[in-house]
């Protein structure tokens, strides 16, 4: 059974959603289906007063359907207001953004990310897409939540080829576990149901303390699952898998 079929996307979405608190301003950018779904889920469950901002410019959009691309104009539907990406960067820069969702092609044990290059920056073996807003958002947003739909030792590395961005990482959510940043290091906070400590250890390129005592991420509740089915019948949540 694939991760997709096993409900790992939903497990990740609820794990992310539960990190969001009522009243927070929360932003995601391009190529962010999981944060989009998780934020809308949080707004329907644990954080109804959350302010949902996206790169599409919607403030508290209530899209009629969920798009595959998270810059999509449907993310303006039923929005209360419209802002530009510049205004969102400014908001973060002046300390007004509570949560930014970001990701990395490589992520190290400090929660820093590489989105720039494998090999040398100037003569890369692999040119990566670039960090988008991360080098501004990671140091300025109050909390950064990283996510990746894949967890292997080539992603979670001891040493980045290049530090595209670093900063206020709070949690990292993967198909296997939730990391929490404690004193600047990623520690395993919980492992998802059905995942073994050994799986997490071998999939992670930096040393992690994980064992039978590690808490298990609570699976989606019936209520969370129902909301997910309602807001995301097409399972856009699984599109990154």
């Amino acid at each position, binding site marked *: 059974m694939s991760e997709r079929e096993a409900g790992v996307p939903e497990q990740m979405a609820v794990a992310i959603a539960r990190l969001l608190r009522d009243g927070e301003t929360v932003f995601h*950018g*391009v*190529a962010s*289906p999981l944060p989009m779904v998780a934020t809308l889920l949080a707004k329907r469950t644990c954080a109804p007063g959350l302010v949902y901002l996206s*790169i*599409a*410019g919607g403030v508290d959009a209530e899209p009629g359907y969920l798009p*595959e*691309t*998270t*810059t*999509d*104009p449907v993310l*303006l539907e039923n929005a209360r207001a*419209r802002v*530009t*990406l*510049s205004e969102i*960067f400014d908001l*973060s*820069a*002046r300390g007004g953004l509570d949560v930014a969702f970001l990701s990395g092609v490589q992520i190290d044990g400090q929660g*820093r990310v590489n*989105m*720039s290059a494998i090999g040398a*920056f*100037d*003569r*890369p*073996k*692999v*040119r*990566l*897409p*670039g*960090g*988008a*807003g*991360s*080098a*501004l*958002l*990671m*140091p*300025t947003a109050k909390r950064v939540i990283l996510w990746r739909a894949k967890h292997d030792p080539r992603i979670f590395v001891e040493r980045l080829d*290049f*530090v*595209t*961005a*670093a*900063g206020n990482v709070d949690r990292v959510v993967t198909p296997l576990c939730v990391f929490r940043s404690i004193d600047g290091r990623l520690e395993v906070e919980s492992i998802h149901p059905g995942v073994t400590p050994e799986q997490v250890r071998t999939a992670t390129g930096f040393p992690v303390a994980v064992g039978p005592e590690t808490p298990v991420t609570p699976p989606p509740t019936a209520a969370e699952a129902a909301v997910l089915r309602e807001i995301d019948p097409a399972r856009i949540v699984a*599109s*990154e898998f």
Partner: protein
Amino acid sequence: MRGKVVSLPEAIAMIPDGAVVALGGNTVHRSPSAAVHEIVRQGRRGLDVVKTAGAYDVDLLCAAGCAAAVSAGFIGFETPFGMALAYRRAVETGAVEAREHVCASVIAGLRAAAQGVPFMPIAGMTGSDLPAARGFRMVADPYTGAETVAMAAIAPDVAIIHVQEADVDGNAAITGTLFEDVLMAQAAKRVIVTTERVVDRLPMDRVTIPGFLVSAVAEAPGGAAPCGCAGEYGYDREWLLAWGAAAKTAEGAAAFVVDRVATVAAR
């Protein structure tokens, strides 16, 4: 028609080789694709392409040999369409220079140009290797001594903005997300607007780019395709997937450019 209205080939002919060209839109949304196709057809060379987050437009300009440099925060398709493989290959072979930015530093550079100052201080960037790798310099606040990164002004020679409606005087109305298009129009020396429709007169509150900033208006129905255009059409999934498949090899990308772009008149 009259005023600033020209044909798309005439508009693109204004762009010299080596120009700094800012492209409106974001990833697969409201990119000025018809203009990009025309740039490819006219065989422009040596462009420095400025964008916050680019995808098909930048990838195609790299594949067709039009771009010498890409100044952007992110070049990649959204989830269903994967990476920008032609861009990646062009940078890896040294054909194109990746002038990686933070999206916010593109904005800061454009703001400096729009405000007539040589640089703009920008927050964040701490802990990133980008300033050192890219030669971004620091500047000290003359009041407190606090240091921030300074972004040099980015004044594009041309900004190309695709909009839903424009009048013959260049007043242009964007439906949906504005992205950085208004700022690009302010920062650029010349502005080319491509528009789904030339309309008679727009109500003041509909205008997002005032005509006095615009040099030329070219009517280009479907001009964002294969990217989407809010309120008009979605992105062309088949085309983008076909491009993604073709772009896996240099030969595939070259054949795609010939078959679907270079030998085809404006859509």
